[in-house]
């Protein structure tokens, strides 16, 4: 690759916003890149299937004829009272130690996991963005105070708090949601605060002040739209964290109380049976793994689509990587030709 080519590509990176002259907004560009990212598309499909699985839990229960809390001592356990394996007596994924259908319980567990994951992330995002904006925009004493609160929240030992709360009150869904939210908002706040600190020095913020816009208008109408990208990525990555968090609490017995199923408390029960009944551990663990992995990969995909200058190690299949290389070769077509700086276009394809 010649020097001029390098310079051309470097210019192309600088001029990235100018490409919108073709009539594409930043979001449209992001969407296009995301659609071309196989990993992200597969993640979206997987997440969609998990959501369908959770929504269809009552249908699954109805179709199998196995209620979520109903034990089947006769068909669901073998002669020695052990769980039966997948496929026996109509239990597709086997049963647990008292003869309940694992498939139905995992489906209902998905409801809890997704509900907790999405709800806590939503609350934490709204709270985190608001607090971060306020700290960053007002600065001074407000910022000093809020920044210390953020530090304190991040430094808090979450298991200890959860254990204490579960000991004082009884373990409940409300405590799980409260604890997870409490430990999620601070990370979002910290990033939003940093971004706000830099954005508020922009000339267009000064322009907004010069026409008389007040602080709240500036924060939520002028600054917030510029933060949506990073916040969207963060939120997508916080969902799997919250799902794992819930599973951890339930596993330890301080989360979702029995008999309501949660992936965490199913796994907690399964601890005593992993030597004899592999399915009891593998299926709920797989559900947890697939869900969190899909959300994580989708978050990565969104981040890459927003900032085409970053290159991911796991860039999908070989075929897709080759395709990307070719696209990079077509100068000026797509903003991810910026990656040509990292991987020279001439070296691939």
């Amino acid at each position, binding site marked *: 690759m010649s020097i001029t080519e390098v310079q051309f590509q470097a210019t192309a990176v600088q001029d990235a916003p100018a490409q919108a002259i073709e009539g594409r907004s930043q979001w449209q560009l992001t969407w296009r890149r995301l659609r071309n990212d196989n990993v992200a598309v597969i993640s979206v499909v997987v997440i969609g299937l998990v959501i369908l699985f959770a929504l269809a839990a009552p249908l699954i229960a109805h179709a199998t004829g196995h209620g979520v809390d109903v034990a089947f001592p006769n068909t669901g356990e073998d002669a020695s009272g052990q769980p039966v394996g997948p496929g026996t007596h109509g239990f597709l994924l086997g049963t647990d130690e008292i003869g309940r259908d694992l498939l139905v319980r995992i489906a209902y567990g998905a409801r809890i996991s997704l509900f907790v994951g999405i709800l806590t992330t939503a609350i934490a995002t709204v709270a985190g963005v608001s607090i971060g904006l306020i700290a960053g925009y007002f600065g001074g004493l407000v910022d000093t105070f809020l920044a210390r609160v953020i530090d304190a929240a991040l430094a808090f030992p979450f298991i200890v708090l959860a254990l204490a709360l579960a000991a004082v009150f009884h373990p409940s869904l409300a405590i799980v949601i409260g604890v997870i939210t409490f430990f999620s908002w601070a990370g979002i706040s910290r990033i939003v605060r940093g971004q706000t600190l830099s954005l508020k020095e922009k000339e267009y913020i000064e322009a907004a002040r*010069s026409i008389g816009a007040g602080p709240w208008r500036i924060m939520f109408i002028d600054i917030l739209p510029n933060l949506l990208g990073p916040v969207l990525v963060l939120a997508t990555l916080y969902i799997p964290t919250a799902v794992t968090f819930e599973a951890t609490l339930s596993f330890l017995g301080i989360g979702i109380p029995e008999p309501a199923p949660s992936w965490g408390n199913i796994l907690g029960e399964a601890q005593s049976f992993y030597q004899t009944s592999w399915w009891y551990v593998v299926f709920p663990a797989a559900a947890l793994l697939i869900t969190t992995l899909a959300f994580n990969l989708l978050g990565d995909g969104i981040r890459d689509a927003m900032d085409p200058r970053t290159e991911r190690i796991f860039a999908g299949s070989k075929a897709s990587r080759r395709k990307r290389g070719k696209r990079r070769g077509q100068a000026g077509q797509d903003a991810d030709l910026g990656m040509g700086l990292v991987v020279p276009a001439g070296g691939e394809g």
Partner: protein
Amino acid sequence: MSETLSGTAVDPFITGPGVDDDVLVRVENLVKYFPVHGNGLLRRSVAHVQAVDGVSLTIRRGQTLGLVGETGCGKSTLARCIAGLIPVTSGKVYFQGRDITNLSRRTMQPVRREIQMIFQDPYGSLNPRRRVGAIIGDPFAVHKTATGAERKRAVQDLMARVGLNPEHFNRFPAEFSGGQRQRIGVARALALRPKLIICDEPVSALDVSIQAQVLNLLADLQADFGLSPRHPYSAALLSAAPAADPDAAAERQRIILTGDVPSPINPPSGCRFPPRCPKAQDLCATDEPALEAKASDPRTHLTACHFPVQEGEILARADRRQQR
């Protein structure tokens, strides 16, 4: 600092006493110091950057005031002080006879409608995530003067007025060129029909050919709206613009200043310019010259200098031809 600002403020009206209905803005002895913080735990301020130091000026209705000075001499700071965007250290700003120095945001609000700014960088002064219609409509939204369809019509009228296609109100700033973007900035400043428009180097970020377009637009608008734009630095633009006659350009003489720009943190005592002034003498280092009418001045002219340039005088270091 204030090379031009404190040294040779050119203002014919400053001495005019009493209230004049025609006077739009009156700045008296405006001072803006920025504290320089130490590295210690308490970040005590250890010094001050004297960005603007004792500027006085008056602008009448329909008048254009150009402010000229070297890079970093406080032109933009002065503009921001007058627009009330940053607090003033001392001095007074009067707008239509009313003291608007360091007003709170709420009391300043009605004044904001009358004073608008056009910013230097058309790329930095438009929010990249908001549509052009929303940006130009912002003043209406903030001051609640027009809503819904009425606002949209007003925005489209403005866009047509500054030479933009009104159909494009739904686009993002990134979809416009630099000149078009500056037109968006102009439209936003005009939205509330202000009495004073402060232009902070409105064309310095643009191409020379586009500069002419935007300057012509401003001149047209001034005539139409009866505005009083101020162009800090526009005189520098004039001197930097290519002369129409190449022979004349070759003959053009330029005073080349040598020496260091005085430090704004620790400015020289007396006059601010001796290190670079071709006529500086010992007196300049000790006595700060007052701004007054000199014998050599035209009727409307004031100068703050112990040794003003006389008619026909050629400065000692002024005999160098402009190097191209």
